[in-house]
């Protein structure tokens, strides 16, 4: 199976404080890979490094088969194969259509194709009725669905999801989980999912990496990790002691 991300000894510090020290991580194509861990464990920093939004201080970073050089032309080329949804997704001023069409317009796609893909993406998420609505008037759950549709419209190879359901109610959360599964299965999109909800990790991810104080303390198939955690900290986290 193709490996889309290879990370070796990636570190990141803010001032004196080291927030990330990931010795080794591989993300395989077609998987849902979960980054699990408590608040402040370095999950978001790791995701931002992989999404090429934050530079690493040291280490080797290989993304989509390329050694990252941080040259703007390379960043554009790589980022155009990715998309991201965060926990409270930012919506540009304007309609839902404007937001979902944004990535396609940036790629200078023909108008007809933009129209078609925006409609398809919104339809998949059950949001087509909102196409002309102002994006900033949507509820939390609706915003997240539009954000997923917006990411999906650009047909990414990799979709980063940074706690996409942490700000919404349980039923909307489960609904979004279904969409995440569907996107992974239907389009073979590789998904890197951050969560601190281990039930969600178990429902969605084939692979999980457990982070603690910036380190990856354990990783492997999600099922194994939940049934037989190797690290005592993982065990305690799963028991809900953190």
């Amino acid at each position: 199976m193709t490996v889309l991300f290879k990370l070796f000894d990636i570190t990141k510090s803010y001032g004196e404080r080291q927030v990330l020290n990931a010795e080794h991580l591989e993300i395989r194509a077609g998987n849902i890979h979960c980054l699990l861990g408590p608040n402040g464990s370095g999950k978001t920093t790791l995701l931002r490094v992989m999404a090429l939004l934050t530079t690493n201080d040291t280490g080797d970073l290989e993304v989509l088969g390329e050694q990252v050089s941080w040259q703007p032309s390379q960043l554009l080329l790589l980022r155009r194969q990715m998309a991201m949804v965060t926990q409270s997704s930012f919506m540009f001023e304007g309609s839902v259509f404007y937001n979902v069409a944004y990535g396609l317009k940036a790629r200078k796609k023909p108008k007809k194709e933009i129209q078609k893909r925006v409609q398809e993406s919104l339809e998949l998420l059950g949001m087509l009725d909102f196409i002309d609505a102002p994006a900033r008037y949507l509820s939390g759950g609706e915003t997240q669905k539009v954000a997923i549709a917006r990411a999906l419209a650009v047909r990414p190879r990799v979709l980063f999801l940074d706690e996409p359901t942490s700000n919404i109610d349980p039923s909307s959360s489960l609904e979004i989980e279904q969409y995440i599964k569907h996107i992974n299965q239907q389009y073979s999109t590789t998904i890197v999912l951050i969560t601190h909800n281990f039930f969600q990790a178990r429902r969605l991810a084939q692979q999980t990496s457990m982070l603690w104080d910036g380190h990856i303390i354990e990783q492997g198939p999600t099922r194994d990790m939940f049934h037989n955690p190797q690290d005592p900290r993982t065990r305690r986290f799963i028991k809900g002691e953190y």
Partner: protein
Amino acid sequence: MDVIGQGVKEGILLILSLDPELIQVTLLSLQVSLTALVAAGLLGIPAGTFLALKNFTGRKLILNIIYTLMGLPPVLAGLIVFLVLSNRGPLGEWQLLFTPSAMIIAQVLLGFPLVAGLSARAVMSQRQEVYDTAVMLGATRTQAVLSIIRESRMGIIAALTTAMGRLIAEVGAVMMVGGNIQGKTRVLTTSIVLETRMGHDSRALGIGIILLILAFMIMLLILKLEKRSFKDDSTIQIV
């Protein structure tokens, strides 16, 4: 009280009379201030955006200079342009002194810091997620920066509105470099000064009313443009 009443009456009569000289003075006021505003906008918005987004040595110093120049006294702006354009000045050979061009240059000098400084503040108030969202959707750096400007447009329009208010109403700079020459460089504000000096208080007040109406109409136009582009923007509800 009588002077004010008389002034209002005279102002209305002046508007109704469609006096050719007054029309010419009004049009020149508009031409000078609007040209200066467009130039200040074309220079100030990119400069403000650059200062807000680019980190380099001396950035803070430049920003502080711009913030200070936002309060530049018009007479001083006029004096600087006067010295530069006077026969002994570095650009004396251009022969621009006492022409509308000199007045525009002086007003650009006044408008630029306002537009650049306030645009910089508007862009700085945007959060990192605007850029992140844009680039993660495949925007180039330029496209992402344009999106940041688009998100800041409420503040940028406020900057242009503030600059227009300052330019249309200022007298010191245009008087200094324009010279208030009848039929050539006389604008509404310098007319008010002249009429007051000649003891025509009511006429001066009348012209003042015309100036006020003009400023109001320009602001209305800008606010209308603003409203059109923000029809779906939420406002804070105080209950």
